[in-house]
């Protein structure tokens, strides 16, 4: 797995500021992780080890918290994050066939969530709160309502074209 996501020049400096802002105490863990998630789109292992050192926690505990919450990801995410709503309304209107259609289209196999080229991440979410538009997906926070497996092809076509594929 590629771990070379863009870590900018002063990452340690930046992280120190974040930690200083929230305090070097165990209770600062979740806010600090949220900031890292926001900046990098995932939680790089080496930064988690650093955070454990700085907050005087065991790395196992930091890993436990990072894996507990769905808002955190330990793998680098793709450029386009596709969220398929699988709340009750979307589920009964066929969200799973759509989920499968997307995975098939972007060629995701073996339970992977992100394509090898780092372009797409596909995940399900519990409810996007747009049940009237069911089934719903979002791509980088843009909402697509009443999607069908056929519509998926069109949507992905557009994105791939934009990426020059």
């Amino acid at each position, binding site marked *: 797995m590629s*771990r*070379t996501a863009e*870590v900018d*020049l*002063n*990452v*340690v*400096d930046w992280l*120190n500021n974040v930690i200083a802002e929230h305090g070097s105490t165990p209770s600062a863990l979740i806010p600090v992780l949220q900031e890292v998630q926001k900046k990098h789109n995932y939680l*790089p*292992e*080496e*930064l*988690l*080890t*650093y955070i*454990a*050192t*700085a907050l005087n*926690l*065991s*790395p*196992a*505990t*930091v*890993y*436990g918290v990072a*894996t*507990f*919450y769905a808002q955190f990801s*330990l793998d680098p995410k793709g450029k386009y994050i596709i969220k398929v709503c699988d709340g009750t309304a979307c589920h009964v209107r066929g969200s799973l066939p759509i989920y499968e259609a997307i995975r098939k289209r972007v060629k995701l196999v073996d339970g992977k969530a992100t394509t090898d080229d780092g372009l797409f991440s596909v995940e399900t979410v519990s409810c996007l709160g747009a049940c009237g538009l069911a089934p719903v997906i979002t791509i980088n926070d843009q909402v697509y309502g009443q999607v069908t497996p056929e519509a998926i092809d069109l949507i992905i076509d557009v994105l791939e074209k934009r990426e020059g594929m």
Partner: protein
Amino acid sequence: MGQMIIDGQKVEFDKETNILEVVRKARIDLPTFCYYSELSVYGACRMCIVEIEGRGIQASCHTPPEDGLVVRTNTAKLRKVRKNILELLLANHDRECTMCERSGTCKLQDLAQRYGVRQIRFGERDVKLPLDVSSPSIVRDPNKCILCGDCVRVCKEIQGIGVLDFAHRGAKMMVTPAFNKQLGEVDCVNCGQCSAVCPTGALVVKSQIDQAWDAIYDDSKTVIVQIAPAVRVAVGEAFGLPVGQSTLGQITTALKQMGVDKVFDTSFAADLTVIEETREFIQRFSEKKNIPQFTSCCPAWVKFAEQYYPEFLDNLSSCRSPQQMFGSVVKRYYAQDLGLDREQVYVISIMPCTAKKFEAGREEFFVANNPDVDLVLTTQELISMIKEAGIDFASLEPTALDMPFGFATGAGVIFGNSGGVSEAVLRNAYEIVTKEELQNVVFNDVRGHEGVRDFTADLKGTEIKVAIVNGLANARQLLEDIKSGKAHYDLVEVMACPGGCVGGAGQPISQNGTNLRKERTKGLYREDQRLQMHKSQQNPMLTSLYEQWLTEPGSEEAHQALHTEYGSRRRIDTEAIKINQPENAPVDIQVCVGTSCYLKGSVKILKTLTDMLQKDGYEEDVKLRAAFCCQQCAGGPVVIVDDKVMGNVGFEQIPEIVQLVKSKVEK
């Protein structure tokens, strides 16, 4: 004080903090998976539920006792719930009981039997997770974990480390080291206490029985066994003998029947340790150098110190542990007496300890690729071998150990108890310091079960401040107090396991660890009483060992054979943080941001260095990384430029580093 009615009996309670303890006081064995009186209460397994009149079903482990409560522990409802819990746990648990290391000592198996679970309405788990066999001491099988969290709490609360924790959520929840790494890649000190509290086979001692049999069957090898002090008072437990009774003679008979060539006593090597360690202590004490002196017999403690307290490594006694002194003496000298090469001699240790397996594999204890100790078996493994060989242990006649290393004094035997090393050293130090014979050899202040004990030994005017610690969380607290100047000691004995080696994780598994430990402790003190000699310096075999080979305590030869050194050790294998990775950059720089360097301000060094490289235009010539521990903690902050390691780097050295980069780039 108060009174409760439990299943119709009136039961008084006093200091009990929960109903479970009161129920057990009433001699009702309420089942639990996650309750240990020495750990915090977790309340996960719900097996200890009771019905309290007016309150319904409650978990007794975290319900405080109250005067007048009417409690029932056995009702139709409770029975149904408990059976259901067991069935659900088994639905998610590997059911290949016959092949499990813990078959017979597994709590889940035991309770499933007790509650008559004969059928599981659910299918088996289809995904099998891989075993973690990376550790030299412990095997982790996540397929057998029931998520009781006992291992998580023992590692955090007793050892102060926290190698394991819960990760993920819901059906995917598991107990794992950080980042799903293996035990061998993280800061586990191999004490094995997690396996001692694990109710199932999810964490077990790594068995090396096959290798032991192979060596015994191999006619070209002379197999020499050493038996650690704490083993003799624990083996009998497995064969229905009274807890704490020494069975050293029977163990010897059994080993000889199994085909071992020589059986010796690690207590002999403990006597040797006492002589070397006391000499070292008196020298340091008189020079006031590297005081306090910490003991170094416990390999879990040594690894702990290497990982967390590199600044104290010079304070550790340089003495090898008795196990390693024994191995060294046998392979270096005794093999010559037998007319054999060291490769022809195969040394097996029987230890109460899982960390000893790790210790025997440390590269410092190899000579020409041959280890001083070839194999370490735990008490548990020895018991299995005796059973496998079909030996009726309880009715064996005792046999005397072989000479010369079968002769030990009581001082060597009490090494297995917390406080034993200190007492043995004091028995020797007293005579050296006062030049008088010690009449009363018992130092009662040293003895006890508390996690931290301290006292001042008065050697006729020479006062020695001694601290005895067991449990590494206690050790951590003590070290912090020493660091901050709150505490001052001359001699500190540290053992990782509660009660010392008698409570080691290699000892037989039991549900009632605390009481067993106390009985084993008493057993070792009885052995000391029973033996003729109580002071290591009286051991005649030791005298001849020095005469023939070692010359005198602390000699050059003794240092070669019996002492060692320590180095700081990385806690976790994590890749370095990549700060800047220009392609084709000719220079590679790592700045250590592991805990020790971090606390010494290495991050500021990193920042300044980054800025200066940028300012001088070398940004594109340097691959810059923030590394996690370069294992040079004593010299931190550490900066590594290509293969040049620079220690104690301050801001004034940064221009020097930039200069170095410049010269490399120009080349």
